[in-house]
């Protein structure tokens, strides 16, 4: 469990994080969403006792951050994926994981088993003895994530786990995280990809210096940025739009660039009804997709259009 109480940190008089109040439950996968410079990394660094806070405090599994002897306890029960993988390039993946895990005081045979388990899960077991320098960016990131989980931490902090990865590598990293999610740890993920946290996290906080909104992805979507279904028709006629408008749950029905857009509270439930309605009206449907929001749009909404 993580709890922050008025947590703040400034650099050279400028606040990077200010009055942050969050609660993350045991076993929860929590996403901290915010643009570059929002203070996400600073938050993770404070929570993992890497840098000190300048205001407030926080508790990780009951231990107070940056206060000895609690800080050393926190470091030993926490796993961290920093912004950069930070692996030793000349050493092998196995050696890298073994070294860090040993620093956490994990005994040799237990270490070996856990590292093998993680490397097999990542499909890197066969290349375990090759120097990390020969690995692709995505592979390095996977090793770094494995490192964060290797000593069986109670709480894991992941700072932008898929940043800078190509879509393919992002996907494997996300799948890996999904697999690890089953282990029931508290996981705290920083990200500036709305999409990513929506898929991985039980709950999300949107932050810019301080928390702007907190809730489950669905709640937040409904409350702040809504969900929009996009329907592409073979030919778009006014009567089709009228047919959809007749459905009372469909709000803000409109066309953009020949596509039909409908805002919905619960698209999973409502999409089939809309499609039925359209088909009955004689429309032929090419695609049905969900409109992807960018983080920037979310911010505009949250901050009432004043930008950030």
């Amino acid at each position, binding site marked *: 469990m993580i709890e922050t109480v008025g947590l703040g940190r400034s650099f050279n008089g400028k606040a990077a994080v200010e009055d942050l109040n969050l609660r993350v439950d045991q076993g929860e996968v929590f996403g901290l969403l915010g643009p570059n410079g929002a203070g996400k990394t600073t938050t993770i660094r404070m929570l993992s006792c*890497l840098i000190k806070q300048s205001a407030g405090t926080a508790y990780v599994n009951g231990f107070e951050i940056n206060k000895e002897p609690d800080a050393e306890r926190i470091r*030993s029960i926490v796993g961290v994926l920093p912004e950069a993988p930070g692996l030793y390039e000349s050493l092998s993946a196995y050696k890298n994981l073994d070294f860090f895990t040993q620093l956490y005081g994990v005994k040799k045979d237990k270490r070996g088993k856990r590292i093998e388990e993680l490397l097999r899960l990542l499909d890197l077991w066969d290349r375990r003895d090759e120097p990390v320098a020969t690995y692709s960016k995505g592979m390095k990131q996977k090793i770094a994530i494995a*490192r964060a989980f290797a000593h069986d931490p109670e709480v894991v902090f992941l700072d932008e786990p898929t940043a800078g990865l190509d879509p393919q590598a992002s996907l494997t990293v996300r799948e890996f995280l999904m697999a690890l999610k089953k282990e029931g740890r508290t996981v705290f993920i920083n990200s500036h990809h709305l999409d990513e946290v929506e898929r991985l996290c039980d709950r999300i906080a949107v932050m810019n210096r301080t928390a702007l909104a907190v809730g489950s992805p669905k709640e937040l979507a409904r409350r702040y940025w809504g969900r929009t279904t996009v329907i592409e028709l073979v030919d778009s006629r006014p009567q089709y739009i009228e047919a959809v408008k007749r459905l009372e749950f469909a709000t803000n029905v409109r066309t953009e660039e020949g596509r039909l857009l409908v805002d919905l509270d619960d698209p999973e439930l409502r999409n089939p009804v809309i499609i039925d309605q359209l088909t009955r009206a004689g429309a032929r449907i090419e695609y049905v997709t969900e409109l992807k929001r960018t983080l920037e749009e979310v911010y505009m909404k949250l901050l009432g259009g004043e930008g950030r």
Partner: protein
Amino acid sequence: MRFDRALTVAKKDLAEFRKNKYVMITIVLMPLIVSIVLPMVYVVPINQLSRQSTSDLDLSFDDVSGYYEEVTVTNAIIYDAEFEDVSIESSILRGCIVRNSTVVNSSISESRIELGTVENTILTRCDLVDLTADVGNTVRECNYVGGNPELEKLQTVMFNVLLILIVMIPVTIPTVTASYSFVGEKVNKSLEPLLATPVTDFELLAGKAGSIFVISMGATWLSFIVAVVMVNILTEPTLGYYPLPNAYWLAGVLLLAPGMCFMSIMANVIISSRVNDVRVSQQIGGVLILPVLLFFFFSLTGMLPSEVLPMLVFSGMVFVADAAIFRLSMAVFEREEILVNWK
């Protein structure tokens, strides 16, 4: 302080050093040159100074024992005589006592030579007491009493130069290894995951500094032993005794070298916190050799005697500086400082 964690860090660093060809070249090549190649170069003049042997003797008459004062002896073969204030040239003497005299181009054995000057002469099994000059002689199994001034002067220079180079090993190896160890870790961005582990700042510094200290001093002491053996093997036949190690050398290698090694490591920690380039770090680190060079400059020019006492005093000064620089590097090597201010 958990020793096992410091040890884990040290072992990891050593594993990285093994994979780094620049580090390996420095660790292997530098001691090799200093301990094997340089002794060969440096002992040559020593041996030459001793080896310039006498010219062919043209002996025209034998002479007998007796007491001689203020005469000139040329082309003589003399046994069991005693000389005072004489000039001996191109002669062979055995079992004599020669006091306050000048000997040139001769061969003297089993004699005692006191307070004189001896040039281009073969000396075998003699007692040489307080000679004022001793130039170009071949000296075999002689016993110097009060010293051999010319040879000693040359030896002092040569051995000082060799000692400088040996003391440079523990200063230089850290500038290469520490720059990879600290700057490398910074450029690699591996300090952050390292600092996220329960390892304390001090354990981390101890592990990293310890691994560098061990390889630097290992290389230094190995070079020292090899250099001493080399010098002794190469000069003993002409000197008639083993010149090294003397107390001056031992103090240099056992006190000054580790003191400078520690200073070099700590200085490189501080430098590493401010630079992002291994080469820049090495260049700045090279400045550290200056105080050592200055000390040896005074020794070489004779402004400081090449004896134990100045070496002990200088080593003591280095230890004091070590303590100061250690406190400074502890302040620099601190989690918050590393993550926020190391650029």
